[in-house]
């Protein structure tokens, strides 16, 4: 392998410095979307605010963590729902719930503790799976996710087995009941917006550019002196923190957490949200989450409620079969870059980074 290969685009951007990446163009549609999101609960009913709005936002945050790994690192981790679910379980185990197993610690200890434990777990998952590449990542993270599910289901001393925990509630703070539709929606919106802009910022930081360069050509980055595995593990940690934030909201939204919350259907649900919305830009997971939640809620109107999985599976299948966008386009591009002769490699496009 020759060492004088022309720099791939992300590496080139990294080398040219960050000045060009620093621009955050604010277009009219951004303002409109922001205003709509802020006004939405004032015109919508409680049902639409909570069940559709808040739920889509918190699922979007969890799927955003998948987007961060898959879009910038080409690592499709199926353990993101497990990380979120673990955070929710920690909220229940250390915090207050209707089950005597809970320790009942105050929220201002429990929330940071849950975030830390879930992030550490995600880092551990990352450390295990970055030593292999591509398709192996899916297998390993899926195996880990399913193993945690079976552990939660069969263990009654810590996870309370099949029943899990119920009666989880957000704290009453500043005389506001945060479980109310309006406050909870704005809480989710705030977290989602912070996560969204954090991912957007990170994608343009040195770290984010290094990640994208590693995604495009790990061998070259290794040759340039970058610690590829360490970057990937760090990405898992960051994504884990995002998923954990989503998990805390998840616990408060559902008021309960059980093995079903981290079962295969929930794991795949996050994947479907990510793929449907597109995994190239951080807005994708939120778009996917809205579609997913709407389908979940209104499936009963055009198909038997019991057959929701057939519906969502079919939609997912069609998306994968007929859409080359998002993740799939990225994957194909990566495959082409890896297999095509170098002459064609130079022309390969980078994913657009418009915000």
């Amino acid at each position, binding site marked *: 392998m020759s060492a004088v290969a022309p720099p791939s685009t992300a590496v080139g951007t990294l080398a040219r410095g960050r000045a060009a990446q620093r621009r955050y163009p604010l277009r009219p549609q951004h303002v409109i979307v922001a205003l709509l999101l802020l006004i939405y609960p004032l015109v919508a009913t409680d049902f639409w605010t909570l069940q559709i709005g808040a739920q889509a936002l918190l699922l979007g945050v969890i799927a955003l963590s998948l987007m961060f790994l898959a879009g910038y690192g080409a690592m*499709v981790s199926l353990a993101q729902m497990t990380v979120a679910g673990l955070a929710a379980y920690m909220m229940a185990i250390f915090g207050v719930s209707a089950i005597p197993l809970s320790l009942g610690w105050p929220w201002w200890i429990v929330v940071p503790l849950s975030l830390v434990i879930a992030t550490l777990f995600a880092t551990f998952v990352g450390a*295990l*799976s970055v*030593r*292999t*590449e*591509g*398709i*192996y990542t*899916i*297998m*390993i993270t*899926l*195996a*880990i996710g*399913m*193993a945690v599910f*079976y*552990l939660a289901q*069969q*263990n*009654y*001393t810590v996870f309370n*087995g099949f029943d899990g925990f119920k009666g989880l509630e957000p704290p009453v703070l500043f005389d506001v009941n945060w479980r109310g539709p309006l406050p909870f929606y704005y809480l989710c919106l705030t977290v989602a917006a912070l996560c969204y802009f954090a991912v957007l910022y990170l994608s343009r930081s040195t770290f984010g550019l290094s990640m994208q360069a590693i995604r495009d050509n790990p061998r070259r980055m290794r040759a340039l002196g970058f610690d590829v595995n360490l970057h990937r593990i760090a990405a898992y940690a960051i994504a884990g923190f995002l998923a954990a934030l989503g998990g805390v909201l998840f616990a408060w939204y559902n008021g309960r957490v059980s093995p079903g919350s981290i079962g*295969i*259907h929930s794991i*795949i649900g996050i*994947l479907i949200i990510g*793929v449907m919305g597109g995994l190239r830009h951080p807005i994708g997971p939120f778009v996917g989450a809205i579609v997913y939640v709407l389908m979940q809620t209104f499936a009963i109107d055009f198909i038997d409620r*019991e*057959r929701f*999985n*057939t519906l*969502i*599976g*079919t939609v*997912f*299948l069609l998306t*994968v*079969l007929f859409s080359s966008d998002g*993740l*799939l386009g990225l*994957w*194909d591009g990566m*495959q082409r870059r890896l297999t095509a002769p170098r002459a064609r490699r130079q022309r390969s496009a980078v994913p657009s980074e418009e915000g």
Partner: protein
Amino acid sequence: MRLFILTFLNGLTLGALYFMVASGFTLVFGLMRQVNLAHGSLYLLGGYVGYEVAQASGSWFVGVAAGFASMAVAGLLLQVVLFRHMEGQDLRQTLVTIAISIIAADLMLARWGGLTYQFDPPEWLFGATPMPLINAYPTYRLALLATAIVIGLLLWFFLTKTRVGMMIRAGVDDRAILSATGVNVQRVFAITFAIGAGLAGFAGVVGGTALSIAPGEDNRYLLASLVVVIVGGMGSVPGAAIGAVLVGLAEQFGLAYTPTYGIAYTFLIMVLVLAIRPQGILGRPT
């Protein structure tokens, strides 16, 4: 001591079952680099089809044959209709298999409901065999062990002594060169997929007889297959045998001695292998 021997035998026979499921999974992965996450669905569907046929024909053996044949045909169709059009797109194929597994699980639930089905195998298979130290052990489980060994030997013979088997092994090593030598790679792929899927269906009936068939079993055997091939090395049939025995033993000893943490041992084995030898015990570095 009695508990230890019983647990050991249980682990071994469970490993035998896992080997039957996972050998097809690892064969398909090794040749086509395709992770068939619908492999568990093939197991469960094979079990259901075998049950229906066994009930209708009154013969358990016809049921076993039907489980194998129906899933072999299903696998062939999947390969010819879907996967051959997505060659080289690993991720896309994997996502498609996930979608298929969701739909299949839901439709099976609609057709067969949440009930647990029990087979009635022939009398002479279902008794107990006298054994030293533990008095007796279910004959069926011993037969399961023997069947897995026979399947392992047949696979070994097929892969090393027959022409198609050699093509498959050559394909595992280098697909491009294999097709350059004039071999119809698509046909080799289709045969491999049919065998892999057929083995899953076969295991569905045989395993369903040892335990039972019910919704959710598809995920259990998918997890088992994943862990077995991660531990044993992807694409290696002997590796699948080692992995299956390890996972079977870990699961049974875990259940016998620390009931609520049983799965943790399986997990621990996977973590250790990934930490020490990421490509699996008999896997080759990529």
